């Protein structure tokens, strides 16, 4: 199941993606380990944090379709949406290029 995009817009991709340190940590974790598929608690463990600390950020990234979620057994798990991730990287690259052009 893929959620509809919400607040993370291409017009300001960096600001939205990095709106919290937890989101930045999550993005780095999933970029370095694109095969990560786990519950919120499992993901938090990889970051040395508690699930309750990152739950809302995970949910926002899923809302923006950067993460996908599905049910495994009795658990809800999250994993990287590789296609959306490639698009986001492209948006960020364009954004940074445009910033350079405005200087």
């Amino acid at each position: 199941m893929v959620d509809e995009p919400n607040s993370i817009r291409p017009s300001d991709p960096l600001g939205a993606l990095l709106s919290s340190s937890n989101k930045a940590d999550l993005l780095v974790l999933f970029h370095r380990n694109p095969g990560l598929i786990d519950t919120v608690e499992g993901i938090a463990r990889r970051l040395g944090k508690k699930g309750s600390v990152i739950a809302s950020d995970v949910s926002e990234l899923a809302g923006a379709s950067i993460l996908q979620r599905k049910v495994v057994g009795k658990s809800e798990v999250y994993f990287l949406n590789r296609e959306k991730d490639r698009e986001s990287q492209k948006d960020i690259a364009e954004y940074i290029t445009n910033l350079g052009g405005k200087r």
Partner: protein
Amino acid sequence: MSEASKTSNARVKTGIPEFDAMLRGGFMKGDAVMLAGSAGTGKTTLALQYLINGITTAGEGGIYLTFEQHPDQIYRDAKSFGWDLQKMEAEDKLRIVFTSPDLLMGEGDPEALLEEPIGAVNARRIVVDSLSHLSMFAKNDDIRQETYRVVNFFKLKGMSTLLIWESPQVLGQSFSISDVGLSFLVDAIVSLKFVEIDSSIRRAMVVLKMRGSDHDKSLREYEITQTGIKVRAPFKDYQGLMTGSPTRSSSERFVDLMTKAAKEK
């Protein structure tokens, strides 16, 4: 009928020629193999070599399922052998799946968890790193049943499975699969171990069990080189290698004595 049973006599080569010779051509297709050894014996290296060989020489997609080790470390370590795992993932030949054991065991669901990666790479080989970690997440009474369920799922999907088992002891009688009663679940067992010879640590491998096939019974020395595992000649003239502290055989001691005596003359 599963893919595995249709090709029951086919072999799955590891890509390590001398090791394949020990296995009389490779593992049996669709089998579950336990690869046991303590830290530093090269289990991950051998397992990756097995997956990479499947991809590059047999066109068989592979999955590396890890519970503890972060994939970015696996990418980095593999690069030191010249293996670009990220490129293989981008080409949909390999997936490194990083997850928690409880999503496979108990109330978990292997099919839901692995459906996407199995389909994406048309997986025919899977490495589970590690079975020891997986078994920790099952209740004591359920270890056999839960592990049996997971192993059978891989077989049903037609995948040849390599299950890594972390032995706690570095030297000595480190192989204790029977203690946890999991050896009956697997079709073959390969043990990697350190042995102390002449005050230096060397590595030895042995095929302890291989259902439905003959195999080399000797302990073979192996090395971890810049390009992966290389299996050398069998250890000769030593007894008690499985204990980790072998002694020279009487014939070898006799030769030593004669050589020493000749030098003294």
